[in-house]
């Protein structure tokens, strides 16, 4: 082992209050190293999605600090844009752009933000679509695809920006059961290729097979962090035991 893997995300003491006074995040810490796959689980309302969204500044926070890929999140718009270029996000509702073809969905951001030539981006986009298994749908529109296909396009769209970290916010929760596997397979392959991933999900089997660590959140706090074998077979915290009994 030469050097320890780089620290991609470092969150310390993050606290967030909503305007109505609700204390959504109560001082959470997390460190994610390069190549790690961290799966965040927890009951609904635990703040896991909110926490995930602070990593690319879609949610702001009042206290604490978050450093992503060496850049600290602050009020500087330039830094936030830089972070967003390096962090890709996949949403529960896919959020594909319905008025653009699949190919255009992928090429929009690289062309406009990274200012790359269109032909080169299109070539890369087609390769990515091949990689997620839907190259032949390149010229279709999102409305013509199934849920599983749309989510795979969403993953390819984020990958087209060549991010260093990928965030997944309950990527399979809105899918019909028979399509969940095709999306998880793509995510698994992404992990195998060494992508740093933070995934909010309920998929226990995925966490068992792919996660480097599992994080349990409840009521805005991190309850337990452990490797999957330990977490699922021998949880330490009372809350973790309660959660695991609810989902199995």
């Amino acid at each position, binding site marked *: 082992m030469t050097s320890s893997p780089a620290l991609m995300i470092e969150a310390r003491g993050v606290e967030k209050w909503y305007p109505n006074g609700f204390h959504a995040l109560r001082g959470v810490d997390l460190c994610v190293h390069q190549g790690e796959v961290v799966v965040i689980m927890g009951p609904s309302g635990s703040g896991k999605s909110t926490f995930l969204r602070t990593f690319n500044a879609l949610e702001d926070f009042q206290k604490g*600090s978050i*450093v992503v890929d*060496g*850049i*600290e999140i*602050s*009020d*500087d*718009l*330039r*830094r*936030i844009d830089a972070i967003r270029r390096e962090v890709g996000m996949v949403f529960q509702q896919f959020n594909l752009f319905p008025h653009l073809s699949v190919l255009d969905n992928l090429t929009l951001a690289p062309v406009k933000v990274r200012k790359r030539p269109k032909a080169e981006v299109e070539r890369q986009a087609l390769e990515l679509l091949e990689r997620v298994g839907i190259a032949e749908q390149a010229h279709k529109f999102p409305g013509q695809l199934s849920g599983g296909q749309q989510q795979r396009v969403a993953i390819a769209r984020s990958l087209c920006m060549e991010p260093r970290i990928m965030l997944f916010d309950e990527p399979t929760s809105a899918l019909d059961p028979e399509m969940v596997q095709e999306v998880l397979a793509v995510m698994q392959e992404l992990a195998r290729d060494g992508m740093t991933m933070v995934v909010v999900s309920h998929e226990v089997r995925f966490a068992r097979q792919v996660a480097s660590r599992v994080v349990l959140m409840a009521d805005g706090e991190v309850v337990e962090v452990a490797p999957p074998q330990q977490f699922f077979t021998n949880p330490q915290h009372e809350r973790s035991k309660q959660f695991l009994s609810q989902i199995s």
Partner: protein
Amino acid sequence: MTSRSEIPPWWRNRRYLPWLVQGGVALVIGVVVAFLLTNLLLNLTARGMLLSWSWLGQPAGFDLAETILPFDASLPYWRAMLAGLVNTLRVVIAGLVGATVLGTLIGTASFSSNGLLRKLARVYVEVIRNIPLLLQLIFWYFVVFLALPNGRDALHLPGIVLAKSGLFLGSPELVDGVWQAPLRFTVEFGALLTGLVVYTAAFIAEVVRGGVASVPRGQWEAATSLGFSPLLTLRRIVLPQAFRVIVPGLNSQYISLAKNSSLAVACGFTDLYSVSETTLNQTGRAVEVMLILLGSYLVIDLVISALMNGLNGLVQLRER
């Protein structure tokens, strides 16, 4: 790693930018408004016509062609404008009733079992909607109402006489070649009312049609399977549900009709706008007249909206 205490410059600072943008917009708006108002004050002062309301008490010096309130040239301006307002309200209220009735008839006709009736309803809406209202008003006034015969040749139905000099209700009688009756409506009123009703009914028909169409097909089917006739279904099951969608749409059509009544000046009907125009031409008091005019229409709109919102509250489904 950059430290947190470094405040980024203002043009990329997420916290300051919203305030700066608002400040910039406020500045621009402020400058423009100040510019316009200053010029206004300067120009008005130069003409000795700063804002005052005393001129409203001076005698008007013009007659009104038609008014319910007693009025003549010696009465003050404010009486003239009040008479105009009353005229506007007269035609607006009558127009709202007429347009709603006609519009509902045409809107429900689109669901009739008779193919010809459906087609005619469609044609009515498509034709009326695409011809300017002013053109239609002028047509009704000059081509139809003013072409009515007069005197002895007037159209005579029991209790009603329709002549060029007006619509006479009650027991009309011919006195020295001129018709008289307890209740009289001028052709100007008639033309304006007809034009407004015909035009607005087309839009209301569309609102009603949309409302009835929004009721799920299952409601019709359930009613039929219970033995309801189509007319009963419409009245008791479908229309009450359709109202939820119709009432908000009616609100904007009613306000539209109230505003369109200002075109009365094309028919020679002395409504609020027409009186205001004459007043302004006589006194030159543009700003004050404008304020009264805009204020009045605003109040009319607010009253209509308030009434419709109340109706809306009644009509919405009580849900858990």
